[in-house]
């Protein structure tokens, strides 16, 4: 524990650790010192001069945000001299700040406005200065920069640097100073990724979200804490609602949101959202009541089950919804319909990572969160433009690298992380797997693997692994480079960040973890959806019919026996674009129900379309990246019955009452199935690879890890998965590029 310093602030005795600033120390004693340039968590700059305080025995006023405490220091934060100095600063700011608070979005939450009132400032004391050619509002998307309101506190500059971006800085000097991008380029050309962190720290109305304009005044906003549901990282998020609609989102405790969390929710307030259930009426749809829609669905499902057997009915649910909804969806089919034909569309977005992890380790303890990544000493990032696709992961990696972590990047492109990498392995597109295998090869050849760990594992030994020799001509990366990467990987307890979720890539990543004895917190798999892990596991349900079920892929196959399908928040037609006969299959179904936010391409083929609540509108839990159960609150008003009720009602209409009265009861059930445990989550379902296995059983620590055999000639056929493709596999309209444009 560091040395403690005792000082006196405003007649209060305060004891704080050495190195604390006066402003922080005052904060600990609940004495608030006004500030404009200081922002908690950012390095102080000491430039606004509002936090000046008087220290006994010191002639000059002290800048409390930068000056550190000393033993016995006597500080006064509210003397007349101090107030006068603060008033002076505020009066000066008003000599350059346009004074129209009536239409400023920040009004009510503006620090300048607040201090101006508190210190009874004469706004017109000094001559007004309007610079020539005063920069007006910039034409940037998403973020409005009204530089005439800027007070040059520099918070946005520092937060942007802190996020590892450094897009903004001061330009010019003196009164000509402006905060802008390099060469004053528009944000779109500046490298800005629109995380909006700058908006979150702006003390005045200079930086505001374009989409919040005229949606509500600051004092009308009701903040609610929840989680972002637009990728598998589940960042903290606060949403502000006014007049029953979302005005904006803000970062939560984590202090960071990427463009998806900050602006990507806008589809929720789209005019195009489905507002009513629709039933097919010839070539068109007609709106109907929920009762009518559910009755129609139940009748058709029951009819087809009667006529063709329960295994001609199937369900597919996307990875955007809560554990409770997924669990109940599984139950609806197993218990209500009586079939195992129910699967998560999450599997369509890549390999079934959950199954592979469980298969190898028997539990989900290898899962790591963004925070684990931030603490890592060695990081292996695998996936094209991983950083660009998952800015929160990129931030974590940048922070780790800033603290000295070594970074190995496997990426065919010159991405941002590649530029930051200690070693950038740049394979020919599609040969990432070969590179990873080369790393595995080196670990074994050089004896860098953790034999002790491996021998402690049941049912496994080195001998079960078959890895071919590394062939540099396939990848274009020299042996030496791969070997160097392997040595670096073996040195620190590495975390692997993975956005390439193909089965063969995942298998090799897991092998790497196992070889280095990394049985906990070593894998951050990144999905473009909120709940891939929950979707993969909870879809199992617990009353399991005898016959094995079909996977989502199998159900969508044109030769599958499926005659009736219920698709929730997935858009196979939109994703596959008519390839693989998916559209033909769906068109030929006897009955198709689609539940989604929009009338997707798949929904257009449906017989009944049910509307859906968005991720901010429905409560539930998701299974976070690090294996923790995260709670999503219904932050925005729900528009439709929650999914669990829809599934319950359908089940009831199919003569199987589930008996849940609230989502809490379902959550209790979910928690029974997944226990989080101190060491990471354990999971009480049968092996997922053997679908239809009727016996629930615990697995050994891990059972086997053999690498799927593929011949190298076949591997050269492996196509590259680009982030864009990855994102479009789902009906999630919030993918990065789309949002920014």
């Amino acid at each position, binding site marked *: 524990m560091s040395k403690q310093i005792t000082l006196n602030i405003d007649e209060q005795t305060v004891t704080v650790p050495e190195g604390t600033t006066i402003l922080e120390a005052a904060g600990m004693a609940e004495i608030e010192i006004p500030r404009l340039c200081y922002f908690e968590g950012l390095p102080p700059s000491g430039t*606004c001069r509002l936090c000046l305080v008087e220290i006994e025995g010191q002639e000059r006023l002290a*800048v409390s945000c930068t000056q550190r405490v000393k033993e016995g220091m006597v500080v006064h934060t509210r003397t007349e001299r101090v107030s006068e100095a603060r008033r002076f600063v505020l009066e000066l700011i008003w000599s350059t700040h346009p004074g129209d608070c009536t239409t400023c979005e920040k009004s009510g939450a503006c620090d300048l406005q607040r201090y101006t009132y508190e210190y009874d400032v004469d706004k017109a004391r000094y001559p007004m200065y309007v610079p020539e050619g005063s920069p007006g509002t910039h034409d940037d998307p998403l973020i409005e920069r009204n530089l005439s309101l800027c007070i040059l506190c520099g918070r946005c500059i520092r937060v942007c640097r802190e996020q590892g971006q450094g897009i903004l800085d001061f330009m010019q000097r003196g009164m000509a100073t402006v905060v802008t991008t390099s060469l004053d380029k528009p944000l779109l050309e500046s490298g800005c990724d629109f995380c909006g962190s700058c908006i979150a720290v702006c003390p005045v109305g200079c930086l505001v979200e374009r989409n919040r304009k005229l949606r509500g005044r600051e004092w009308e906003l009701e903040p609610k804490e929840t989680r972002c549901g637009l990728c598998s990282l589940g960042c903290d998020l606060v949403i502000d609602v006014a007049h029953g609609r979302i005005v904006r989102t803000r970062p939560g405790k984590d202090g960071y949101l990427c463009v998806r969390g900050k602006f990507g929710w806008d589809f929720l307030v789209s005019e195009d959202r489905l507002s009513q259930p629709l039933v097919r009426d010839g070539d068109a749809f007609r709106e109907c009541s929920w009762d009518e829609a559910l009755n129609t669905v139940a009748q058709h499902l029951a009819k087809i089950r009667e006529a063709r057997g329960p295994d001609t009915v199937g369900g597919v649910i996307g990875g955007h919804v809560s554990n409770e909804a997924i669990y109940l969806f599984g139950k609806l089919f197993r218990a209500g319909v009586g079939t195992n034909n129910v699967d998560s569309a999450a599997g369509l977005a890549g390999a079934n990572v959950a199954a592979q992890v469980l298969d190898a380790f028997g539990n989900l303890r290898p899962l790591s969160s963004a925070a684990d990544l931030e603490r890592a000493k060695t990081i292996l990032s695998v996936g094209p433009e991983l950083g660009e696709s998952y800015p929160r992961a990129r931030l974590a990696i940048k922070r780790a690298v800033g603290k000295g972590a070594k970074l190995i990047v496997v990426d065919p492109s010159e991405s941002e992380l590649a530029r930051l990498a200690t070693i950038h392995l740049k394979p020919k597109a599609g040969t990432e797997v070969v590179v990873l295998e080369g790393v595995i090869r080196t670990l074994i050849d050089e004896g860098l693997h953790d034999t002790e760990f491996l021998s402690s594992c049941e049912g496994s030994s080195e001998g079960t692994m078959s890895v071919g020799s590394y062939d540099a001509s396939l990848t274009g990366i020299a042996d030496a480079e791969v070997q160097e990467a392997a040595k670096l990987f073996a040195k620190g307890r590495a975390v692997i960040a993975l956005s390439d979720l193909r089965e063969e890539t995942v298998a090799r990543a897991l092998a790497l973890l196992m070889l280095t004895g990394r049985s906990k917190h070593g894998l951050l798999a990144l999905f473009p959806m909120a709940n891939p892990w929950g979707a993969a596991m909870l879809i199992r349900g617990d009353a399991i019919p005898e016959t094995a079920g079909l996977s989502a892929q199998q159900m969508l196959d044109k030769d599958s026996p499926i005659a009736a399908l219920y698709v929730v928040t997935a858009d196979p037609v939109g994703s596959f674009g008519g390839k693989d006969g998916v559209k033909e299959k769906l068109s030929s179904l006897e009955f198709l129900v689609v539940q989604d936010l929009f009338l997707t391409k798949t929904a257009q083929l449906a017989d009944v379309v049910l509307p859906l609540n968005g991720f901010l509108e429905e409560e539930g839990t998701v299974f976070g990246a690090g294996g923790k159960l995260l709670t999503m609150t219904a932050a925005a008003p729900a528009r439709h019955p929650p999914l669990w009720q829809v599934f319950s009602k359908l089940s009831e209409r199919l003569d199987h009452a589930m008996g849940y009265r609230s989502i809490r009861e379902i959550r209790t059930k979910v928690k029974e199935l997944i226990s989080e445990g101190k060491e990471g989550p354990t999971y009480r379902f049968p092996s997922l690879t053997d679908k239809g296995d009727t016996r629930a059983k615990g697995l050994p620590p891990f059972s086997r890890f053999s690498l799927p055999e593929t011949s190298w000639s076949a591997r050269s056929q492996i196509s590259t998965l680009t982030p864009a493709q990855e994102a479009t596999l789902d009906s999630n309209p919030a993918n990065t590029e789309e949002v920014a444009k």
Partner: protein
Amino acid sequence: MVYRTNAMICTCTNCISNGALQVKDALEKEIKKQHLENDVRVVPTGASGLCVKGPILVVQPEGIFYQLLTVEAVPHLVEEHFLKGRPVKSLMYVPPGEEAPIPNIRDIPFFKNQRLIALRNRGLIDPDEIEEYIARDGYRALAKALTSMTPEKVIAEIKASGLRGRGGAGFPTGQKWEFCRASPETPKYIICNADEGDPGAFMDRSVLEADPHSVLEGMTIGAYAMGGTQGYMYVRAEYPLAIKRMKRAVEQARDYGLLGKDIFGTGFDFDLDVFQGAGAFVCGEETSLIASIEGQPPEPRMRPPFPAQSGLWGKPTNINNVETWANVPVIINWGAEWFSQIGTDTSKGTKVFSLAGNINNAGLVEVPMGITLRQIVYDIGGGIPNRKSFKAVQTGGPSGGFIPSDLLDLSVDYDRLQEAGAIMGSGGMIVVDEETCMVDMAKYFLEFTTSESCGRCNACREGLQAMYQILTNICAGQGKDDDIELLEELAPAVKDGSLCALGRTAPNPVLTTLRYFRDEYEAHIKEQRCPAGVCKALIAYSIDPEKCKGCMLCVKNCPQGAISGEKGQPQTIDQEKCIKCGACHEVCKFEAVTVR
């Protein structure tokens, strides 16, 4: 080769801009023509000092001083002086108001009353030749320090000498060195601040141009004392000649083993790079300068930590000004005791000033601390030209203040100047006469600092702007009754609230003019009158019918056709047409055009 005579021609930037290089070429050609090339050697030097009279030639060893040379004058000069041995009187210095020329540089009051330490080699050596520096005791101090003194002893000597930083703030140099030496981290950096930015100041440039090795030697001694291994010479890019000479000096010193590895075979390593600054005024502030070397925007950083603890790239760093460094070898050679006998109790040694403005002998002077302003202005500077009277002297540039005529007997040292509201600064000294409006001067300096403020802290950025705006209003005849009060409130608040020295000193010109020339402010505001006749909005030209002879010269020179009258009769000015350009006032031989 032994020469009979050395023709020392000043090739500083000032003299070069007045044609010194052409004169030098002509001189060499003419000497050859007269077959004197084996007798007379032409030596380019730097910073002869009396800049206003350049190009300047001093013939040594006799010490004959020639001024305002032209190419045309050279043949006559060579023939008369070098061939026939008859010094040319028409090219000699004549004191203002007198007729008899003073032939010898040692007798000219401008030079006679100076005391040279930092500028000890000015005009005496070719700055491009290290051997000439060595011949004048150059690098002896370094040898002494490295071979017979411990680093602690060197610091003790500098401390005992009482040397204070010549960059402006006057912080005791020895103490600064001690702090840096005490920092445990390595490497340590030694920086020379040659980012001279004050308008009208050219001391640093002159030292670098005249005697670059004196600074190099001082820095190397400092590096030895503090444990520095790498030096930076931060020179603004506007000083190309200083940069060129310094780079040559560095190369020569390296060739001679006086810089680089194992200096003097003692195992001590120190090397130095010349870094060009892009010319922002704030770079003179040491933390901004450090940021600039790092490639960051030149913005000051909060202190503590001080550069001595965490400076360039987070390592202990010592920054001293050019003149400070140039003093160091002399102190080591001659000892602290000798040095501390010069000057006053609190300010030891000498100070270099660049004397400019309304003064006869504008140029570079080095004087002992404690000399009075009167001695500088009149004895050395030769008084005010054109029979005008002295009004004030401004020291310390934009960070300094104005000192009025009744304080002319003020002794020049750090503390007296501070008491008077000015500062020593780096040594700019601007003399102004009665026809200078003090409100306008204050406005001029504020305009400078407002535009040079880096703009990071509110108090400096917006405070200076507000002050500048008020001064502009006053000069435009739009002053309000409470403007003086507002300025008096703003100035200390800006000083108190600013992050770095720029903002903390920038109100000084306003504060001192308010203190000593308040009546001028009041005249502007209350009487709508500019007593010095400068502020156009407040003045009117008129013709005194008593004095006007009707010569019509003013009529010819008026660009607006605003003056009319009969030839031989008093003229009148049409105030509607007059644009107050002052042309009539300037051309009138009878002082009939008056300004109100």
